[in-house]
């Protein structure tokens, strides 16, 4: 028993140290990368690219399901993005409300026979509509497919541009977001096959006419903690992984892909729980198997603002789903692990995800239990355990404050003093009891997966409804 406890304590110690050190390394890489990125941006004149012939055509695909309250504002927002050659495809995914009618009235839709070749799997299409007021808007009306992946695939089948940008209809894109996310592609069109943008928390901010008027921190603690999580995940994690061409997730709320490649891998997998992670992993596999020289980029300045869960129940469901999605992708791709042909993805990125993302809740919970048991059996140095806990706490706050610092010196979207003080305060407060709850949700996700509960359930969001009210 004691041997086992000792082994588990050893594991916990080294695991925790490795996890924190890897995040520290990522923080250092991210700080450097974003400084270089900021300087590079000055070399490009974004205004010039607005009308540039070098900007390739892009199709935005936005799936919408029961979005009658916000669809008008959302579509207008997309059509007004700064980009010269833009096509917007809204996929009405079997909405039971007036989503289609709202669009019909606002944009004077008329039925058309647009090019629709069902290359990617999707539920049956009921009709295609083109706007009379803006020819670049196409609406695909389809039977409910039960997943976002299914809806995106329908849009993919109708897309006519060499690049597709996948967004959520209830997210808010900054006006120059598309232009910014396309910069790496314009810079290296031969190698760059996909680019991910940054997702920021919309809750609490003021929106007018579909545009962000003023960025504010949300009021609820649970939302503020998610702001920190998003900053940490995007400004540190993805920035660092992207730098090493090891990005395995491009958020489904905002990402650009080369259309022919997405079609070549069969589009999104409709049954996938984490469809965005699944797609990027399959793209890596496809390109590495073909021996292609390619890059998948992350750029931190094109911003997409999205609503995050504002109650514990929804958040728990979301996190459990993310964990299920992780396992759902990692398990079928286990053959990529430590295979030289899959390069850094197989030897570094995927093992990291297995060890520090998938197993994290199991190891952490097991570790906590063994410390408690060891303490009860009297085989624990309490002084050292306390110090170790303090060290872990201080280290974790360094990472969190580092992400806030990164935000401060680069994009500085939270201008209000009060917001910054609250943001920093939550860097210290998020570790108890939120972190433990988070672990339990993730464990729950794993449990659900093994039980076979893998149905894709969308979260109920208010989205731009609140914006409309203002």
């Amino acid at each position, binding site marked *: 028993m*004691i041997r086992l406890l000792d082994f588990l304590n050893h594991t916990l110690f080294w695991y925790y140290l490795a996890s924190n050190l890897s995040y520290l390394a990522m923080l250092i890489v991210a700080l450097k990368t974003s400084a270089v990125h900021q300087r590079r941006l000055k070399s490009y004149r974004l205004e010039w690219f607005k009308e540039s012939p070098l900007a390739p055509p892009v199709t935005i695909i936005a799936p919408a399901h029961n979005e009658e309250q916000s669809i008008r504002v959302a579509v207008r927002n997309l059509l007004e993005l700064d980009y010269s050659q833009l096509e917007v495809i809204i996929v009405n995914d079997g909405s039971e409300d007036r989503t289609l009618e709202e669009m019909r009235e606002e944009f004077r839709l008329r039925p058309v026979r647009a090019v629709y070749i069902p290359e990617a799997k999707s539920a049956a299409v009921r009709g295609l509509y083109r706007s009379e007021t803006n020819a670049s808007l196409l609406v695909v009306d389809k039977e409910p497919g039960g997943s976002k992946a299914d809806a995106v695939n329908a849009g993919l089948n109708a897309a006519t541009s060499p690049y597709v940008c996948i967004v959520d209809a209830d997210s808010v894109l900054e006006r120059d977001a598309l232009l910014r996310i396309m*910069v790496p592609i314009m810079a290296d069109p031969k190698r760059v096959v996909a680019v991910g943008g940054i997702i920021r928390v919309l809750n609490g901010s003021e929106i007018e006419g579909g545009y962000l008027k003023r960025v504010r921190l949300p009021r609820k603690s649970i939302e503020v903690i998610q702001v920190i999580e998003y900053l940490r995940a995007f400004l540190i994690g993805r920035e660092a992984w992207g730098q090493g061409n090891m990005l395995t997730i491009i958020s489904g709320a905002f990402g650009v892909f080369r259309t022919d490649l997405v079609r070549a891998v069969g589009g999104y997998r409709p049954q996938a729980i984490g469809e965005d992670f699944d797609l990027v992993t399959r793209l890596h596999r496809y390109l590495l198997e073909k021996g292609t020289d390619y890059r998948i980029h992350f750029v931190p300045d094109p911003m997409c603002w999205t609503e995050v869960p504002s109650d514990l129940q929804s958040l728990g469901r979301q996190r459990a789903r993310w964990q299920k999605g992780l396992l759902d992708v990692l398990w079928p791709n286990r053959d990529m692990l430590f295979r030289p042909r899959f390069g850094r993805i197989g030897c570094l990125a995927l093992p990291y995800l297995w060890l520090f993302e998938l197993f994290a809740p199991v190891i952490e919970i097991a570790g906590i239990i063994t410390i408690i048991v060891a303490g009860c059996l009297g085989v624990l140095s309490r002084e050292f355990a306390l110090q170790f806990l303090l060290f872990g706490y201080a280290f974790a706050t360094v990472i969190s404050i580092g992400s806030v610092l990164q935000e401060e010196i680069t994009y500085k979207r939270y201008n209000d003093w009060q917001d910054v003080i609250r943001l920093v305060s939550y860097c210290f407060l998020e570790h108890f009891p939120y972190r433990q709850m988070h672990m339990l949700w993730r464990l729950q996700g794993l449990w659900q997966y093994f039980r076979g509960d893998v149905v894709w359930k969308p979260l109920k969001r208010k989205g731009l409804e609140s914006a409309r009210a203002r």
Partner: protein
Amino acid sequence: MESIFERLWRLGPAAFVLKAIVAAAVADGIFLAFILLRRTYRKWYFAKRDARVFALRQGWDKLISGAIPYETWRNKALDRRIVESIALDALEAAGAEESARLLKFLRESGLLEKRIFEARKFNGWRRMRALVALGQTRAPEGIPALAEGLRARDMETRLAALRGLGRMASPQAAAEILTWVGERGLCVPALPLQSALIQCCAERPQQLIPYLQHATGPLRETLGRVLGEVATPALSQDLLEFVGDDLDELRAAAARAMSHAERGLAFDVLNELVSDPVWFVRLRAIISLGTLCEARAIPDLIRGLTDSHRLVRLRAAEALVKLRSELVPIFQKVVETQDRYGLQAYLTALENASLRGELEGELQAGSPGSSVAQKKLWKILQAGVLLADEPEMAESGAAKSAWLP
């Protein structure tokens, strides 16, 4: 048995952990202090700057006419920076007369000379800032200093110089950039180079030709792309030598440039390029044919409509519907191809251009050949698909679906 924590305590790592706690706490403190100090400083600085901007703008006309002596603001760093940034912003949007007035002010006040000095003598961010500002002035005397910047060791400085020369948008700036890439090759990312050259070569694109002839590898592709954007009819003959080039990018650039070329030549060349084995060369050729918008392009565009690549088909369809006077004959030819993907693409383009009604009207009004043919076309237009009694259509569609991109 001892726990790992006890062992670490006894062996000494406890001291390490203690130190680590202190280090982490110090790091937290430094991060927080940095955020706090930076915010405080920025608040103070911007308040001060806004007040000075307001004050200087009040007497702006007197200031640039020299009625207010230059020495009153030139010796104060903040004022000098503000005056320069207001002048440069004004230059961006100024007409010819206002530009000349502002440039005269920059010269007489010594701001231009100062920037040239900084661009030559300084290093790091001060040099980069000077290079970009020099470009914004569009003053020809800044070009030599910018050209020196292109030869800097540091990549960021080279990019700043390139950006500055791009802003100049003049043949002299283009000559400097081209001489530099001729000497050093492609030593900056392609996009800023393309962007700068497109701006600078718009007036005299023939400058590119000799460099393109001697360039190799990625530089050749980059220059080819620029040529594709800036080519004019005067360059038609020069472009011919790139039509059969080994580089796909260069053939695509030639195809793109042909839309600006003399028409007779353009059709001959594009006729060849629409059969290119590389899809984006064919795509470029089809788009150029669409730009030329002439009936003699119809056979090539119809061929593009049956292309194996979806984008080529779509662009060919868009080009075909631009030929409004030929709606019925084109539709007849589209049907004759027996290609359902082509037909679908054509009907989509027709509907997107709101021309479906016009075609229906023409089909009803006059006969394209026999009344049977007219009826058949009408039925196809209404159904949106090729008729089922044509077996070869189904075969060709099924065969194509197997190898579509």
